[in-house]
């Protein structure tokens, strides 16, 4: 084994002739010289740099220079547009969860009472040019006199000038009750004008309207839900919303039409109001209620 320094001396080509003579007798020398020969095959290909291509380099440079102002403009544009977006009027959203009602005033002091499980959307900034409210759920409106006031739902629109009315839109159910003034209701290609005390209702089975209302505001505002020829599943949905419970049914025809009401005060009393007429039994387990047909066992 040769000394490290001796080997390095050889590798750096620093040996005297005499030293080299001695080193050639070692196994290290034989390995290195054989290795050198083999390593020659790994030599990097001959690289001839030629002249530096200035135009190529400058082309790249000029692209960067050209892009720079463009990028600056883009950055400014991005900042401005995000500020505009931030300042831009966005619609006001209000919603109630189950077992919760809410009332508020619109910009023109028209009053809105939201029943449980309801969403309302309107634009404060556009209010002066267009009185427009998006509704999903149920709400009662007391509209101040003025220009056209529109309530939009997925199924139909209600247009008035100044009046009070209730709009219900639950799934494919749409109902408008007019309490005061005159209300124009449109759904699909159907159009109907409601006078005080009149109700228009669209269910999956069709349209009907009647005159019955005697009060000045809907029953639900006084803690009571009333139905007239309403599919039973909508009644159950309303019950779930008012008491924040979940109802399950067994062997019950949920398309049957229900006419009646329930109070929001006592749940079990309310439950009786909607089950007894149909001869339905129930069992309560906390927030879960099972409804089943009485004569099934």
């Amino acid at each position: 084994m040769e000394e490290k320094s001796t080997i390095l001396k050889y590798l750096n080509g620093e040996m005297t002739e005499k030293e080299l003579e001695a080193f050639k007798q070692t196994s290290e020398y034989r390995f290195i010289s054989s290795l050198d020969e083999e390593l020659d095959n790994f030599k990097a290909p001959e690289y001839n740099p030629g002249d530096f291509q200035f135009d190529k380099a400058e082309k790249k440079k000029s692209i960067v220079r050209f892009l720079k102002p463009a990028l600056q403009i883009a950055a400014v544009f991005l900042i401005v547009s995000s500020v505009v977006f931030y300042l831009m009027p966005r619609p006001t959203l209000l919603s109630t969860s189950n077992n919760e009602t809410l009332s508020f005033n619109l910009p023109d002091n028209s009053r809105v009472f939201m029943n449980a499980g309801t969403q309302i959307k309107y634009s404060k900034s556009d209010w002066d040019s267009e009185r427009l409210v998006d509704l999903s759920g149920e709400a009662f409106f007391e509209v101040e006199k003025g220009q056209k006031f529109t309530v939009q739902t997925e199924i139909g629109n209600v247009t008035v000038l100044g009046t009070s009315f209730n709009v219900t839109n639950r799934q494919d159910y749409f109902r408008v009750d007019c309490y005061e003034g005159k209300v124009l209701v449109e759904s699909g290609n159907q159009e109907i004008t409601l006078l005080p005390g009149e109700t228009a209702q669209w269910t999956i089975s069709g349209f009907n309207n009647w005159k019955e209302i005697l009060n000045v505001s809907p029953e639900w505002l006084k803690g009571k839900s009333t139905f007239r020829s309403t599919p039973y599943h909508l009644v159950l949905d309303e019950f779930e919303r008012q008491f924040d419970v979940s109802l399950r049914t067994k062997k019950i025809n949920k398309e049957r039409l229900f006419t009646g009401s329930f109070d929001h005060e006592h749940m079990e009393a309310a439950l009786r109001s909607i089950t007894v007429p149909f001869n339905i039994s129930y069992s309560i387990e906390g927030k879960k209620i099972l409804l089943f047909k009485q004569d099934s066992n």
Partner: protein
Amino acid sequence: MKSPSEKDNICNRTLFNQLFQKLAPDLYNFLYYKYGADNNPEDLVQEAFAKLWDNCGKVTPDKAKSFLFTVANNQMLNELSKKKTVLNYKSQEPQKNSTNESPEFVLEGKEFQDKLKKALEDLTEDQRVTFLMNRVEGKRHKEIAEILGVSRKTVEKRIYTALKILQEKLGKI
């Protein structure tokens, strides 16, 4: 001592071209031995010099070399698609009259070349580039130290370690 104006200015095209012709081969070899043929050492050389030309006002001639090596190395490291170092070797005819007939070499020809190739690729990048600059390019230790911007002691340590690793892998003598 050069005049300050000449010393501080590589933005002169003639001077820059001279610099290019002088430094490009070293840079090319450095990149080739360090990262292999598959990572486009030629393009990297061009890019590094283009960057130097871009910054010619800010880089003094004595700093140009380390600027180039740093830029090229960083560019290489930034390449997301950096390939594994692959060293190419020339296909060769069996050499009958060569010294590798020494009995200690059991493996010969292609088989040995493959083994050597693998051993070289398994060295660290720094060991490989230092060792090959010495053994293949015939550069002195001091020269390599200058090119790589490390101490001569570091260069010697790398070369010696690389030699011992190869010796270990290719057969004791």
